[in-house]
């Protein structure tokens, strides 16, 4: 069977899926229709809720490394196929044949040296794909920053074939007659991660996009507030370049709009708009901002607080309204927004700039894959297997499945990786055969060498002989010039071996060494890559003397560090000495825990499933009514059967975690009662949640006040009939007690209302809400409920509905409403939508040394990029332990967490390059390092009275070496003495 996977789309979802799969030893083809990979990753300098980049967190290693784009490009198991599309998919799961169409780039990747001369002479312009009309590009252009591959490409829609670029190209890299090519790949499974198609707002002409220059899409505005964008973070009007003083954002452009066939909610626009408001205010604190919205949908754990903070910023107004049109005023080109306000009045207001929050559409071209698509173009999936398409072996993930934000996409990618991997038969293996050891150089004579890959640009702009003389006279280093070629790295390694060089300084031309090259260099000795092209040649172009001077300093700094490392820091070290424990513990046997345990078992790992109750099931055991989603009762039955019969799973019922101990190999988990101790390498927390209690609105005192779950029990057990029912949303949610949105309550309320209406159309149902948060496809249900006659009445935190008892079986619900005046309803049932609360996690968190967030859920390592990981390496979360989620989301999380745990169990521990070491002679056992270490990698050996390093846990940050008062703790590659030498070299003139 083919051990290969095709991932279609190299955005956040695709790259993450590919990286995760590649880390398990699978080979991945990563196809993207754009000339370089990255998708919308490169668009987003800032992401909510942290308002900073941090996308480099996305990689799957236990240590933080780098940007996922670079990792994908460097990974030995990932084959990037840019600028290509899937033409056809034949065969079946396990043996697919994929036809790929390679679009012509007109520039040879291997020849292009990125000198930009072609773009300088090109006379034609095209609109920039990100900056839009704000900053046009030449017809021959370099893909976005950090693009992989960075090679130039010609847009033939704009090229006139004048041939000027061909004339100036110094390396003959341009071929205007390049033809499209096709190729075939054999793969076992396919992951569709094709992302989204932003809505084209020109289709909603009343907003004036494409007609009025000062109407932007949210993507264009995103670039405007980014430092790397067209205006470098300045807010300027496209029409006249004047600073923007008053800006309006309009929500739901191309979302929640059945009239144009887009009846779903795009799920992410509310939050990205809030972020853009925040960034805009940061760029220009005096800016006046108005946001026109229908409902706010802060569906993540910390989003409610974020959006509230934005709303409370001075100068920011959120206006619940329906915008009818945007018109331009002459001659100043201001924009007049006409809208219907909450009280029903028609109003007008002028603005300098209008930003349209465009929604996400389904990606194009999916029909070629032979999968069933829904009416919006998204692949059809089942609720209990939300990543499986109608065709076996083809999986879908990220925004291509349903519009979603980055944390959900990251979770989705892990789930898709799980499915795609489960079709491959070969076991998990590490893709790095060489990253296991460093050579022993303790007694070796230092032999420094500078390896200079002399591309024409470097050799023409620098005095090479002067550099050669300098490194020899100042550092005794030999100087080797190499021709740039595709096998330059191999030649370099060969040369270094032949010459016995054990301290390497490498000067690459334009491109960075790949991960594989890094590993090869690492086997030779300590090395440093010096980007002389960027740091000396580019800024001082034309001044050969100065550029050479700068290059000397850079080489000197690199050599100084390598030569001044203490020999004892160069002892042989092998990551093989920490074989991980290949067993996992899952805490909690609800939907999340059981799914995670079964997934791990499916990947071949032994699992101990710990449940504090006497029966597994958790919230699945509650009686529920079902409309279109997962049936909890059926799911419970199958899951329990499968868990109990699985030979890899040991179920510990009525047990709790009593104690956790930890070392470089993993954890020792002790259970109570019984005192059984389990050695494991990874822990998944699936401790679940519960319906929050409340005493508001006569709950607990009046028999006709129920929660939604109590209503469902009633509906399940009998078929009661009511004349008039009121529901109140957000009871104890999104307030000071639970300052987060529980995500599922609006859906549940709408679902229950629909079921009640179906059973008895005469029943009147009134839903009091703050915002109806039926995101994604759930929006359709909300539309259906309104069609069926369910009445929705908005209320606010300072104007809540009032409830009085009218005897035993009646209640009076009243609300002051801006349009209808005072609403008074006599109802015979009041249903409260109370939120989700986490279980009591505090003591477990303390035992594991992990943190809880402000609400009592486990705090992820990074809310955005690592939503399944905790700060403790090897500990993962899924389900309600992480935050409120739908059942189908919980399944994805559990699959993802299981996959990540499996990956972690296989990973080698230890990071030889930068690990901390202790000179025991100097250690005074003061324990400062133990206190400072963020990873608990430092511990005391009280017998020997020295501090030690658990090399399996050390991540090499160097913080312990900094606090050590005696210089006893030293970093392998960043020793203090060496760094002082670097400082000296930096300033030696």
């Amino acid at each position: 069977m083919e051990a290969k996977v095709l991932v279609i789309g190299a955005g956040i979802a695709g790259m993450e899926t590919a990286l995760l799969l590649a880390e398990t030893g699978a080979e991945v083809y990563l196809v993207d229709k754009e000339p370089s990979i990255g998708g919308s990753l490169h668009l987003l300098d800032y992401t909510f809720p942290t308002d900073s980049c941090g996308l480099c967190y996305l990689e799957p290693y236990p240590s933080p490394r780098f940007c996922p784009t670079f990792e994908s490009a460097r990974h030995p198991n990932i084959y990037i196929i840019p600028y290509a599309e899937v033409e056809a998919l034949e065969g079946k799961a396990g043996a697919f044949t994929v036809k790929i169409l390679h679009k012509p780039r007109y520039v040879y990747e291997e020849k292009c040296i990125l000198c930009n001369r072609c773009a300088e002479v090109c006379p034609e312009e095209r609109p920039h794909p990100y900056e839009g009309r704000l900053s046009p590009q030449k017809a021959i252009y370099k893909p976005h920053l950090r693009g992989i591959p960075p090679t130039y490409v010609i847009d033939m829609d704009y090229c006139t074939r004048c041939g000027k670029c061909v004339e100036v190209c110094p390396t003959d890299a341009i071929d205007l007659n390049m033809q499209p090519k096709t190729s075939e790949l054999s793969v076992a499974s396919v992951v569709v991660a094709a992302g989204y198609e932003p809505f084209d707002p020109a289709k909603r002409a009343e907003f004036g996009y494409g007609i009025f220059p000062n109407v932007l899409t949210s993507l264009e505005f995103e670039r405007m507030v980014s430092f790397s964008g067209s205006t470098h973070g300045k807010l300027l009007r496209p029409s006249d370049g004047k600073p923007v003083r008053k800006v309006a954002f309009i929500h739901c452009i191309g979302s929640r709009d059945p009239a144009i066939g887009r009846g779903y909610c795009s799920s992410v626009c509310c939050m990205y708009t809030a972020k853009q408001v925040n960034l805009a205010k940061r760029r220009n604190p005096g800016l006046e901002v108005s946001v026109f919205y229908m409902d706010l949908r802060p569906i993540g754990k910390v989003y409610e607080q974020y959006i509230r903070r934005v709303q409370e910023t001075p100068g920011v107004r959120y206006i619940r309204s329906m915008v009818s049109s945007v018109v331009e005023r002459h001659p100043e080109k201001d924009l007049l927004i006409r809208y219907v306000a909450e009280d029903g009045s028609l109003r007008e207001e002028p603005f300098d700039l209008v930003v349209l929050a465009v929604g996400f559409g389904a990606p194009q071209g999916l029909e070629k894959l032979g999968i069933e698509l829904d009416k919006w173009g998204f692949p059809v999936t089942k609720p209990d297997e939300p990543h499986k398409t109608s065709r076996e072996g083809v999986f879908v993930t990220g925004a291509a499945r349903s519009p979603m934000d980055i944390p959900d996409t990251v979770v989705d990618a892990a789930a898709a990786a799980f499915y795609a991997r489960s079709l491959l038969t070969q076991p998990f293996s590490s893709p790095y055969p060489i990253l296991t050891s460093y050579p022993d150089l303790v007694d070796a004579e230092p032999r420094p060498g500078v390896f200079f890959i002399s591309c024409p640009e470097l050799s023409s702009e620098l005095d090479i002989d002067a550099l050669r003389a300098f490194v020899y006279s100042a550092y005794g280093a030999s100087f080797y010039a190499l021709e740039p070629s595709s096998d330059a790295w191999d030649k370099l390694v060969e040369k270094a071996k032949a010459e016995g060089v054990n301290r390497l300084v490498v000067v690459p031309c334009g491109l960075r060494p790949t991960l594989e090259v890094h590993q090869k260099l690492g086997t030779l000795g300590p090395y440093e890559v010096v980007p002389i092209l960027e740091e000396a040649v580019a800024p001082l172009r034309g001044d050969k003397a100065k550029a050479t001077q700068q290059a000397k300093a850079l080489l000197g700094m690199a050599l100084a560090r390598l030569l001044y490392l203490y020999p004892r820091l160069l002892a042989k070290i092998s990551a093989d000495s920490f074989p991980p424990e290949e067993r996992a513990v899952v805490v909690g046997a609800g939907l999340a825990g059981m799914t995670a345990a079964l997934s791990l078992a499916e990947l071949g790992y032994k699992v101990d499933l710990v449940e504090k109750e006497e029966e597994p099931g958790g919230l699945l055991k509650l009686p529920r009514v079902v409309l279109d989603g997962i049936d909890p009762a059926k799911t419970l039955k199958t899951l329990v059967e499968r868990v109990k019969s699985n030979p890899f799973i040991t179920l510990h019922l009525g047990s709790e975690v009593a104690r956790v101990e930890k070392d470089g190999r993993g954890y020792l988990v002790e259970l109570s009662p019984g005192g059984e101790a389990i050695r494991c390498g990874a822990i998944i927390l699936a401790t679940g949640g519960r319906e929050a209690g409340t005493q508001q609105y006569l709950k607990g005192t009046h028999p006709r006040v129920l929660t939604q779950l109590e209503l469902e029990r009633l509906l399940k057990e009998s078929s009661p009939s009511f004349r008039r029912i009121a529901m109140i949303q957000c009871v104890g949610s999104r307030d000071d007690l639970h300052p987060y949105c529980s995500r599922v309550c609006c859906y549940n309320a709408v679902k229950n209302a629909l079921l009640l209406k179906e059973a008895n159309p005469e029943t009147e149902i009134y839903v009091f809400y703050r915002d109806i948060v039926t995101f994604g496809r759930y929006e359709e249900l909300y539309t259906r409920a309104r069609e069926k006659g369910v009445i929705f009445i908005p209320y606010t935190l300072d104007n809540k509905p009032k409830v009085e008892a009218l005897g035993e079986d009646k209640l009076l619900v009243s609300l002051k409403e801006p349009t209808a005046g005072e609403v008074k309803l006599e109802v015979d049932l009041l249903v409260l939508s109370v939120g989700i609360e986490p279980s009591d996690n505090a003591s477990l968190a303390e035992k594991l040394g992990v943190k809880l967030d402000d609400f009592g859920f486990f705090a992820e390592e990074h809310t955005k990029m690592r939503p399944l990981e905790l700060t403790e390496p090897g500990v993962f979360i899924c389900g309600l332990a992480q935050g409120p989620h739908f059942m189908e989301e919980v399944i994805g999380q559990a699959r993802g967490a299981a996959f990540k745990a499996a990956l972690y169990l296989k990973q080698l521990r230890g990071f030889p390059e930068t690990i901390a070491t202790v000179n025991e002679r100097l250690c005074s056992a003061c324990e400062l390092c133990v206190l400072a270490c963020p990873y608990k990698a430092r511990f005391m050996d009280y017998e020997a009275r020295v501090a030690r390093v658990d090399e399996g846990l050390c991540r090499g940050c160097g913080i312990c070496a900094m606090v050590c008062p005696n210089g006893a703790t030293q970093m392998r590659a960043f020793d203090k003495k060496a760094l002082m030498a670097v400082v000296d070299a930096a300033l030696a003139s």
Partner: protein
Amino acid sequence: MEFEPRIVGFLCNWCAYSGADLAGTSRIQYPPNIRVIRLMCTGALDPIYVLRAFLEGADGILIAGCHPGDCHYLNGNYKARRRVAILKEILKELGLEEDRVWLRWISASEGQRFADTVKEMVEYLKAKGPSPMKNPIL
């Protein structure tokens, strides 16, 4: 000849160094007055490096790490912030110019911000003149 300040930059591996690298690879122009030294984390910056750099003739020191909340080692940048604050106090007590030490947060995507910061610092130091710590009396 115009005074050209010499700056030593201590940048963390994950954010600021990548940001500087991005400035380089995307050919964003910035003055060549800075010599960049890579650290794994700004939390591992020993103030002694800063003092050494001043004694060796640096006119300014730029320390740059991940934005608050984004440290790849959980909280190293906060440690750096505290440490730099104390270092500045000490420099002030010694009568040395603490405004020659800058601490900035620069993420891996902020190549432009890195370039702007270097430009701004060069301008600032040009206006301020050479560092008094270059004086051999010290």
